[in-house]
């Protein structure tokens, strides 16, 4: 079994699976049970400043999107940061850390954007023995209206400033948690980097309304007939998170900055994908909230098995393996030519590929009277839509045309050299450059 021990921004944990700051890490009772179940680390539910804690709504706080068989695909919440007194949280953190020295325990913090506030809380967090802090600049609801959370995360200057204060008043690793509710994730990441952050973590939740009750005309979750936007998470947000992780990983300005990948990690495979795109570890919230703490056992076993199968010796070895393959569209090889191919033995003759291609693509699939579906190579532009709508995995595949074979669509032989848009004759700037 591959050793999953992970060192992230100087913090060691027995595996790369941390629980993200959220209800699963809200209190000592949960965190102890999470550690018993096998989680490598936890980011404690976000702490606020000293004084009366925030209050949550007393009605429903979640909205959801389901797939087949009510599989939870996306969850949205309007929960705030911890609603328990700071003192209680700190005492509990200290006790848990003492009992689980090998696990990572990170304090998530959100206090007003004033130096004094940070200066006040950081020494108290340090006393707990926590391994580091995570600055919650992500929460899109409730706290942002108070000038915290994503209100800070959306302004790179604030991120840099607060990160600097933290580096000044705290001597263990500082992780900056980023909000996805911005246009270009690289700017806040660069700001964190410039402020001296030891790592970034992302994504926090995406601003969202999951559904509207068409009888009461209230957004869900409904509080006395009204709803407000919440933060979206779970499997549905994974593609957004993967892209943002990759954007930061391949940005030369933040090169080498450790990334904790968050957003929809539900299985070992999701985790492996985050790692491959440049994350040093992952954080999980919704999967634990859906299936309980035990899911980590599948994640750890699956990742370890996959690493064994591939011969990877450590998590660090996997980190960033796919990053170099993330590029801009203009650099994609236009001489790479494929055609859809239907495996007639696997085909169940549902005709979905036909409907999709005929109605919305390139009219490149023929249907015979006996429902045999075949690709017309002379029409197929290799868009891949048929593969995606086919209910049978592996039935339709994309065949790469070897060099020299004539593409029946263009009548031209396949070239073996690489040529992208920047070099294409149809590109006005390409010609101008010559």
């Amino acid at each position, binding site marked *: 079994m591959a050793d999953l021990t992970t060192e992230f921004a100087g913090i060691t944990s027995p595996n790369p699976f941390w629980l993200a700051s959220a209800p699963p890490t809200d209190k000592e009772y949960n965190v102890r049970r999470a550690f018993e179940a096998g989680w490598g680390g936890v980011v404690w539910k976000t702490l606020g400043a000293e004084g009366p804690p925030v209050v949550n709504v007393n009605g429903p706080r979640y909205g959801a999107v389901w797939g*087949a*068989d*009510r599989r939870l695909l996306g969850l949205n919440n309007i929960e705030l940061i911890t609603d328990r007194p700071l003192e209680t949280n700190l005492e509990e953190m200290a006790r848990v850390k003492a009992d689980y020295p090998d696990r990572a325990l990170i304090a998530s913090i959100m206090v007003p954007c004033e130096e004094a506030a940070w200066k006040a809380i950081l020494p108290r967090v340090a006393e707990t023995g926590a391994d580091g802090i995570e600055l919650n600049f992500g929460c899109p609801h409730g706290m942002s209206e108070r000038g915290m959370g994503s209100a800070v995360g959306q302004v790179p200057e604030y991120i840099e400033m607060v990160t600097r204060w933290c580096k000044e008043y705290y001597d263990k690793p500082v992780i900056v948690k980023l909000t996805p509710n911005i246009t270009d994730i690289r700017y806040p990441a660069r700001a964190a980097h410039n402020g001296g952050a030891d790592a970034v973590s992302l994504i926090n939740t995406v601003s969202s309304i999951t559904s509207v009750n068409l009888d009461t005309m209230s957004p869900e979750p409904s509080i006395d007939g009204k709803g407000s936007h919440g933060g979206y998470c779970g499997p549905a947000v994974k593609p957004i998170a993967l892209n943002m992780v990759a954007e930061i990983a391949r940005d030369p300005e933040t090169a080498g900055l450790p990334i904790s990948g968050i957003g929809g990690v539900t299985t070992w495979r999701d985790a492996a994908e985050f790692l491959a795109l440049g994350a040093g570890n992952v954080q999980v919230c919704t999967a634990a909230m859906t299936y309980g703490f035990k899911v980590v056992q599948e994640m750890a076993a699956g990742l370890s098995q996959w690493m064994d199968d591939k011969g990877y010796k450590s998590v660090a070895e996997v980190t960033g393996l796919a990053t170099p393959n993330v590029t801009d569209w203009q650099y994609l090889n236009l001489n790479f030519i494929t055609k859809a191919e239907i495996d007639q033995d696997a085909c*169940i*003759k*549902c*005709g*979905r590929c*036909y*409907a999709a291609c005929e109605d919305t693509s390139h009219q490149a699939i023929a*249907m015979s009277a006996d*429902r045999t579906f075949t690709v017309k190579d002379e029409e197929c532009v290799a868009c891949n839509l048929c593969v995606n709508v086919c*209910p*049978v995995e592996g039935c339709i595949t994309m065949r790469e045309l070897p060099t020299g074979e004539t593409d029946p669509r263009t009548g031209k032989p396949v070239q073996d050299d690489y040529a992208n848009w920047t070099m294409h004759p149809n590109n006005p700037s390409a010609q101008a450059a010559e």
Partner: protein
Amino acid sequence: MRNSHLTPGVVPGRLSPDDYHDNFSDKAPPFDAHEAAVAADRCYFCHDAPCMTACPTTIDIPLFIREIQTGQPKAAARTILEQNILGGMCARVCPTEQLCEEVCVREVAEGKPVEIGRLQRFATDALMAAGGHPFARAPETGKRIAIVGAGPAGLSCAHRLAMHGHDVVLYDARAKPGGLNEYGIAAYKTVNDFAQAEVAWLMGIGGITIETGKALGRDLHLDTLRGTFDAVFLAIGLAGVNALRIDGEETTHIRDAVDFISELRQAGDLSKIAVGRDVVVIGGGMTAVDAAVQSKLLGAEHVTMVYRRGRERMSASEHEQDHAASKGVRIITGAVPVRFIGKDALEAIEFRYTEETPDGLRETGQTFRLKADQLFKAIGQSLDGAPQGLDLCGRKIAVTGPGRTSLPNVWAGGDCASGGDDLTVTAVAEGRDAAEDIHAQLMV
């Protein structure tokens, strides 16, 4: 003391009230909303879907299933009922394993089709439970049509004509409308008096008058009907039954299966229905299976179905044969009855084995006997009471296209007419298509 399955002879009350209740409850209980969502989600929404083509009424199955998926079972029901006004009954009685579900791409691929019939029931039940009638009648045309026979064919035709604004009088010889929906279909397929509830719901369209107890040939005559109505649709089903033609067929406890089934369907109290300890059913179709299974469910100790040809020639589907077997019915194939044994009442039956030869079925000469105190004949129904003057095709009323007979302004459909399988859904399709043709002809 109460009778049991061991009591000799043909006696009632072999079971406890609970057993009667359990045995005759819904064979395929309705889906709840979650089950329906899961089942609906399995549909691939095929292009030009094979199931649609296989359905004799061409229901847009992928569309109605998608409507269930998106939480609109009543809209799904409309999609169904637009094509098949008896979609509720069909959902319960169609041999879907030989129709829509047989060609479902998931049946072909995985041997587990989308459960179309049960989904159809989920949708139609939802609409009927909501009350009201989903279709509106066109302005009255003043045209009057007589329909003889209030089974599926007659009802379907009546509804479609009424919807187009015509006035319909629906005559039936029996005391209740519904045809075999009411008197034939196995009790456990259509519980809670569904046949009558469906007729009442169908009548919600307006413009249809039902006159029961009126038999063509006795109380009504085709000539008179043709004289007083603008068109006539004949949907009299197959009222006759085929005989075995063996000496002693009138012996006590030798009976037509359809009579037994009809008695059972009409019984308020199943414990009053007498059934043998050793029951034999002759035949290989749906009627034979239903008679055999229901005998078993009434508490007979041994029930044997005997069919003259091989199993693959039985018209009862494999699914139905399996159902019979699962209820403990023994199926013997390749044998014909040759002699009844017993003085006052039936005691045993002698059979001869048969074999298929190039010249047809031949008896081999080898015999065997089955102990039997009751025998049901289910070797087919036949046309009975067709009015004079109509051309026949084989033993049915000859029709061309959408049910046109050899007489002007007279249409026919359902089991009594040539062409098509003898199924509820086929009768519905033929009734509907004849109605459209009648409408087109009357409105030129």
